[in-house]
């Protein structure tokens, strides 16, 4: 039987993987990808809530709207973040977070 | 001195590309329509149709050796062609014509005369340089072989391909 907790657990594991990636990896781009993964994990739990918490027999579309917003904001965030990473790479020739230890260059 | 080419100011129609694109499409359409009815096609159906009749006067094909009308080998094995050949495709092994031979009036003839067609570049320098007019470039193409050995033309093959050339050595008269 497929229950809500199945989906929530899957989303939680994906989120935890993303979290682990953010903590363990040192390459900024990969850290950034792991952030994306965490955002998508929250999307999964939101969609699961929308499907299980029906409103008059229909899926709760407000949750899906929130997912829509999250995807949009994530896309904007990726564009800006990648631009920052490119600028960083131009200045320091590295994408390793350990090598970026000064606030000003 | 630097010469500055002023770029032409484009009109609106040229900037939009579209008229040019459509006129280009019209041109290709015209060509295709014509070709569809078999007109204006310049392809030659090779193995059935041959190019032989259209070969130009100056065409240079496979080099061959010739004999004169009496059956004498014209080549006197002077090895000028061997020396001048840029890709060193020609190998000549001379021999002396023995005393009492019918052709003893010249001293040497080739014992072996090999032209490696895998190396030949059809430059025609051998024909140009030959004092006896013994080597000629045939109007020949599609020179093929299945191995490197097959691509080497030996003396017999060269004479067979070249055949007989009548007349005197005319090279010195005409001063080309």
């Amino acid at each position, binding site marked *: 039987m497929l229950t809500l907790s199945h989906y929530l657990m899957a989303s939680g594991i994906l989120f935890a993987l993303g979290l682990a990636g953010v903590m363990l990896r040192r390459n900024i781009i990969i850290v950034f990808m792991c952030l994306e993964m965490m955002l998508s994990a929250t999307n999964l739990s939101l969609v699961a809530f929308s499907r299980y918490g029906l409103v008059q027999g229909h899926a709760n579309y407000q949750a899906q709207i929130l997912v829509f917003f999250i995807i949009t904001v994530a896309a904007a965030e990726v564009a800006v973040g990648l631009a920052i990473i490119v600028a960083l790479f131009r200045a320091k020739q590295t994408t390793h977070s350990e090598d970026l230890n000064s606030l000003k260059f | 001195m630097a010469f500055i080419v002023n770029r032409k100011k484009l009109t609106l129609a040229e900037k939009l590309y579209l008229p040019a694109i459509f006129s280009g499409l019209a041109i*290709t*359409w015209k*060509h*295709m329509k014509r*070709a569809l009815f078999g007109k204006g*096609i310049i*392809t030659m159906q090779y193995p059935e149709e041959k190019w032989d009749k259209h070969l130009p006067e100056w065409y240079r094909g496979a080099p061959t050796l010739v004999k004169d009308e009496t059956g004498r080998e014209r080549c006197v094995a002077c090895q000028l062609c061997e020396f001048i050949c840029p890709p060193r495709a020609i190998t000549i092994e001379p021999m002396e014509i023995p005393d009492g031979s019918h052709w003893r009036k010249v001293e040497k003839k080739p014992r072996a005369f090999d032209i490696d067609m895998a190396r030949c570049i059809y430059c025609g320098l051998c024909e140009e340089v030959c004092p006896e007019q013994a080597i000629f470039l045939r109007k020949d193409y599609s020179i093929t072989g299945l191995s490197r050995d097959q691509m080497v033309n030996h003396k017999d093959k060269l004479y067979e391909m070249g055949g007989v050339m009548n007349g005197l050595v005319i090279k010195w008269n005409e001063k080309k």
Partner: protein
Amino acid sequence: MDDFSNFISHFFSPAAWTFLKTLGERLMSPIGFLIWTTFLKSTILLGIILGLVSYTVYAERRVSALIQDRLGPNRVGWQGLLQPIADAAKLLLKENFTPKNANYFYFRLAPKLVMIPPILVLGVLPFGSSLFGVQMTIASINVGAIYVLAISSISVYGIVLAGWASNSKYPFLGGIRSTSQMISYELSLALSIVPIFMVVGSLNLNTIVQYQVEQGWMIAPFWPQGMNWHALLHPAAAWQAIAAGMSLRHLLLWIPLIISFFIFFVSMFAETNRLPFDLPEAEQELIGGYHTEYSSMGFALFFLGEYTAMISGAGVITTLFLGGWSLPFIPDGSHGWVWGLINIGAFFAKIIALLFVFIWVRWTLPRFRYDQLMKLGWYFFFELAIVNIFLTALILTYVK
């Protein structure tokens, strides 16, 4: 019918007969019927498309030859019609070479990734009305149009991966070019068809085609419902139908629809890497771009993928703008299976006509320079598509 089945049953043992009978019932139950018809439809469509792909390659060579006053392949079979088979045999028998420093796994994965997305796109295209009551769409889903966009946006990965995994300069440049080209043309591709969704009010490709059957094709919206085969017998009725179609709203909507057709068509060239925009594989600059290092079946898959993308792209254009399977005066498949077959034929005829245009354009236009391509995408088509959406909204709101 019962007599017939009784008659047949004598040829089987009772156990086998009951098995056959339950099998038949299973197959005719709604879910079983859905499964086997879907399977059959997919198989047949895939077969047709793959055949069409190999003959598109042949057509490309013949048409290019004719345009250049040549003859093209005409030796294998009558007029060279067996050439695709000979080519396939040759490619299969060649050595499948992997360069030494290539990343083997990704190098082998890339051609498959190029091949899969265009085939997935075919899944939602309505390639016919209906045949014996079976709808001629493999999957009629309510987000069909965005599905097409989403799947075609994935197709870039194969190219990028091929460029990267080859570990070689030219393929790498091809892969990089492909990504940026894809990002810049995806936007105008997606935005240009928004006016259609606004006019039709649905993303389901079947609904879009049905709208075009009733209201006229998107690029020539001139006939409302009256344009059926009865009208053919009474020309006056047909004329009335056309005149009724020429309302102010129809005429005004024609402008944004033609613009969006134009943008979509051009963007499709960029999306399928066809000639005015074939920078990822530019032969003269990049020696073949992303598939430089491939040989044998890997190369063949790239080729097949490109042509399948062309065919599915042509299918999408047909479905969205050229009325899908519909022809004026021709009824749909519910009037008899002959009409159903004619509808399928009409769909593929339209695809073939579009493929011809693709080929014709390829052998006419020179390649765009890279900055020109970017400029065209970002400065021109993007803005035009957005303005087009506003124009459509204005017409839909104010002109009744």
